[in-house]
């Protein structure tokens, strides 16, 4: 009974926070002058140009998804499962792009490789002319978004590797080399994680507008953006966001189809050992060099551009002054949001993994749909639902920002929890049940301790996504409560590029330091 009540409340919370605002927006998009009208949708479907833009978005999203998966998964294995030196350093470095708004990365690459870029004196005008042409278009967009989203499959691969039953790999190692074991045993076992990270990257790229706009590649979200930004037409803007629902539904169908033969593996008390490590011998030097080069191009190069731009200490002093309390607010809101996301993600993940309610599939799909939806749509939906005299005490407080984060990012922490919970034998909970423990006690004293690793990953992921959010925050933050990423965007309009660069560096450092201290030693714990 207790379990049912809590899980129904959880589902209800997701509906209230996420679905209701979206429903209110969708209703507005089909009601014009008091009458039902599909005019906004008709305009969208009948435009040839929109189909071309859709094709562009799908192309870009597919390319970025494939590249990040093909490179990110082996990188995750390299950093999470081998004895390559400087693993922690490479992991921190490769995670940095995820902390920056993708638009900033695009600007950095432009500052480096553009016609007035830093490399122009070095490489010459002709070479730069070609790189500049290449940067402004599909290839450039792919490079920038690949840099921005590569950390997702890397981190998720490392996290999901820890859920593989060590006996499975050890049994295979008796008959085959590590290469064959990875291909035949390990990768199939972490396939849910790989597909999930691919889905995340696909949806994030599909919904991205800032980078393609800057790099002159016309994409589908531009229509929704124009309707909001130029025409203030909420109906049309919402209508143009709805194809995201269709794309998300198709992506989920594909994911379900690919996972249909997936079986759960169960760990016992005896299996709670360290993960088997691949000891590299002759290949550790070339692989270290490869990892170093990747870190160089993906992260160090664009970040270095930012550092060069902001080399003056006086600039940093000015930037810290400009940042004001926004940095502290960013970290506070992200920390609280990550905690709430972890709790909600665990409960939702439990609901999905155990199929405790009949609507488990609906809840899973709903969270993914909310993740895919542009933050602006969610933001305006939140305003229309919560901006009333009755609920003003919520709307006029930073709590509204947290509601936005919960709506948008629960999918991530939920899926991480699902995978973590799949690792735990049901008899662990059953044993506690026959000992008389209520469901909450079983969750608190058995499930949560056994899910510790997964919950840490969920918290960190929720923290990063909440911290870097601008689309929702921009729409709903109470006056005077802006976060640092939002402030960076508002200061970009005629703010000095040097100060913007230094603000970005401050943002990265402020988030990496606590992340590095708290998480990485646990994540990369090695056998003695």
């Amino acid at each position, binding site marked *: *009974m207790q379990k049912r009540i809590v899980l129904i409340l959880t589902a209800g919370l997701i509906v209230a926070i996420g679905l209701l605002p979206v429903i209110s927006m969708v209703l507005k998009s089909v009601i014009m002058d008091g009458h039902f009208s599909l005019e906004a949708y008709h305009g969208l479907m009948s435009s040839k140009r929109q189909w071309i833009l859709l094709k562009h978005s799908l192309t870009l999203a597919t390319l970025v998804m494939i590249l990040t998966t093909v490179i990110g998964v082996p990188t995750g294995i390299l950093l999470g499962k081998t004895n390559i030196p400087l693993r922690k350093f490479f992991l921190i470095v490769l995670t940095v792009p995820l902390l920056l708004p993708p638009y900033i990365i695009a600007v950095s690459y432009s500052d480096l490789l553009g016609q007035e870029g830093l490399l122009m004196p070095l490489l010459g005008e002709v070479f730069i002319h070609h790189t500049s042409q290449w940067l402004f278009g599909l290839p450039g967009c792919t490079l920038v978004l690949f840099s921005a989203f590569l950390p997702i499959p890397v981190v998720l691969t490392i996290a999901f590797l820890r859920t593989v039953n060590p006996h499975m790999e050890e049994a295979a190692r008796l008959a085959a080399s590590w290469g064959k074991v990875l291909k035949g045993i390990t990768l199939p076992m972490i396939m849910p994680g790989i597909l999930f990270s691919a889905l995340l990257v696909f949806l994030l790229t599909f919904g991205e507008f800032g980078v393609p706009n800057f790099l002159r590649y016309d994409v589908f979200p531009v229509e929704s953006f124009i309707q909001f930004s130029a025409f203030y037409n909420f109906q049309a803007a919402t209508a143009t966001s709805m194809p995201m629902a269709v794309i998300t539904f198709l992506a989920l169908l594909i994911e379900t189809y690919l996972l249909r033969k997936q079986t759960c593996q*169960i760990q*016992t*008390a*005896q299996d*709670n*050992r360290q993960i088997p490590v691949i000891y590299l011998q002759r290949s550790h030097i070339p692989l270290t060099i490869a990892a170093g080069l990747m870190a160089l191009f993906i992260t160090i190069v664009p970040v270095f551009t930012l550092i060069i731009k902001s080399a003056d200490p006086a600039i940093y002093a000015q930037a810290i002054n400009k940042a004001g309390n926004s940095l502290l607010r960013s970290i506070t809101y992200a920390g609280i949001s990550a905690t709430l996301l972890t709790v909600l993600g665990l409960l939702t993940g439990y609901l999905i993994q155990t199929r405790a309610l009949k609507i488990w599939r609906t809840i899973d799909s709903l969270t993914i749909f909310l993740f895919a939806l542009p933050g602006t749509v969610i933001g305006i939906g939140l305003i229309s639902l919560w901006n009333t005299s009755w609920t003003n005490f919520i709307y006029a407080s930073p709590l509204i920002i947290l509601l936005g984060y919960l709506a948008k990012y629960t999918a991530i922490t939920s899926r991480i929890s699902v995978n973590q919970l799949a690792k735990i*034998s049901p*008899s*662990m909970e*059953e*044993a*506690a*049940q*026959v*000992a*008389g*423990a*209520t469901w909450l*006690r079983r969750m608190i*004293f*058995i499930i949560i*301790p*056994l899910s510790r690793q997964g919950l840490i990953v969920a918290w960190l992921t929720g923290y990063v996504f909440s911290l870097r959010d601008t689309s929702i925050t921009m729409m709903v933050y109470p006056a005077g409560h802006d976060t640092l990423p939002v402030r960076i965007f508002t200061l970009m309009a005629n703010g000095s590029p040097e100060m913007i660069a230094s603000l970005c560096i401050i943002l990265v450092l402020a988030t990496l330091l606590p992340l590095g201290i708290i998480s990485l030693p646990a994540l990369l714990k090695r056998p003695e």
Partner: protein
Amino acid sequence: MDIKVIELNSVSKSYNNHIAIDNCSLNIVQEKRVVILGASGCGKTTILRLIAGFIAPETGSIRLNGQQVSANNKILVPPEKRNIGMVFQNLALWPHLSVHGNLAFGLKVQAVPEKEREKRIYNMLKLVGLSRLAQRKPSELSGGQQQRVALARALILNPDIILMDEPLSSLDEDLNIRLRTKIVELQENLGFTLLYVTHNLQEAFSIAHTVVLLKHGRVEFQGSVKQAKRLWQRQ
């Protein structure tokens, strides 16, 4: 008069169109040791899970100590209120808790005062011969030691009924014999009703008062060990 502790009345259960238990009726009397014997996949574990309350029978009813606890696809009394102890096939020892912690969990849930709790844990560990291993984690114990912890955890709450799902299947012959002797000894001293599941004939005959033979989800035979042995000899 023998008191019926566990009653299964025309219970059926299927999974994905496969019939696991088929119109099964069973009566288990107080303070007896009943062994359910059968090949893998015949439905033994399903019966235990039905009695524990983890799953509900599609048809039929289950009574414990005269009280109806499950009937017609509904669990009327949840597992945590059935006063049952269980030793799982994979033992399900909580890896993050020590031996002491595994035993203390249920006592804390029942809000047993600390002094009393420690006394009961001490006595139970002594009973199963693990007094010196209280602070070890399950991963630091041998297979036999883990079995005894699982047994102690099931017994410490003084349940009326103990369910055991092939608890000794992974142990060597020598350890198997020692532990099943211990199980019989504990049952006779503490007086609980034991429902024990195994596919091992020797194990069954050495433990049981009553043997139940399960085949394809149906009760083929229920009787004393002597009767069971005669049946096997004929076959």
